[in-house]
């Protein structure tokens, strides 16, 4: 019994990621269908917060997948398809937010914080080494002399 359960579990783990796309939705042209799949992964279903178009079975996701395919067949570039949806649904439909002034903090904030942390660590390490090499009578009598970061 246990073995059967284990096998079932293992089987489920190797299954490829399930898409919500029905076979009837797919395009005959495999190249266009591939592009539609790439776009479907990068676009968000507006109804479902954090699911991509391809992963969602919401009616609006089905409609938008159809629109994406119709635009590709009509000769749109990937960028034009995205722009079409952004014009109607806002930048929310892009799962990866674009780099622009209002999203700088999102993209570069973690980097800035890591840099500040590195500077702080570097300063503490340098002072620790300096104190170890100083002799006792050279130590400053006031700890504020050593800079803003003190223990």
């Amino acid at each position, binding site marked *: 019994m246990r073995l059967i359960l284990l096998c079932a579990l293992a089987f489920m783990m190797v299954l490829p990621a399930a898409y919500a796309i029905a076979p009837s939705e797919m395009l005959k042209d495999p190249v266009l269908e591939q592009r539609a799949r790439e776009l479907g992964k990068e676009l968000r279903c507006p109804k479902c917060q954090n699911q991509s178009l391809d992963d969602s079975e919401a009616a609006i996701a089905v409609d938008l997948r159809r629109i994406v395919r119709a635009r590709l067949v009509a000769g749109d570039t990937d960028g034009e398809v995205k722009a079409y949806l*952004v*014009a109607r*649904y806002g930048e929310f439909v892009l799962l990866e937010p674009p780099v622009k002034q209002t999203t700088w903090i999102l993209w570069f904030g973690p980097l800035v914080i890591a840099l500040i942390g590195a500077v702080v660590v570097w300063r503490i390490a340098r002072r620790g080494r300096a104190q170890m090499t100083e002799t006792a009578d050279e130590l400053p009598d006031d700890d504020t002399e050593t800079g803003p970061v003190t223990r």
Partner: protein
Amino acid sequence: MRRPDRMLKRLPYLLPLVIFAGLAVYLWDGLGKDPGRLPSALIDKPAPEFNLPPLEGRDPSQPLATDHLATGKPVLVNFFASWCGPCRVEHPILNAMAQEHGVTIHGINYKDRPEQARAFLRQLGDTYGRIGSDLDGRVGIEFGVYGIPETFVIDGQGRVRYRNPGPLDPETAEKIMALMETLE
């Protein structure tokens, strides 16, 4: 009393506290918001181009198109369907806005069967100006609709000024009517 320069040197200690306070206020504010209520990408832009046939069974000479929205006075565009529960909830509010306050409300019947839409209106009342029949939901996509009901305020020049995703409640209806008065 401490010397000022000494105080100044101690200032960086406060920095984490200040950052924390700022983040706390920002995030606390965000907690109360409904992530399902997206702002419309169409605000202050002209309403999308569309031309819909009237709902079957209504006056066949009354289609609903972009031109009917720019009439010099603000109107509401309400997406509804008979299969949509919240639409039933908000419908009496729409009726009251139209009947008691003289608001012009055009309906877009979204992905519905005309006979069922007619039954819905017979049951709950039909106070719409025009009703366009959006059988495949294409016009919904033009408006950026992702779930109905959704209601749009269109000003006299035919620009989208406000969007309410989800059912109207009496408070929102008041706010919308106040906004429409400023547009008049």
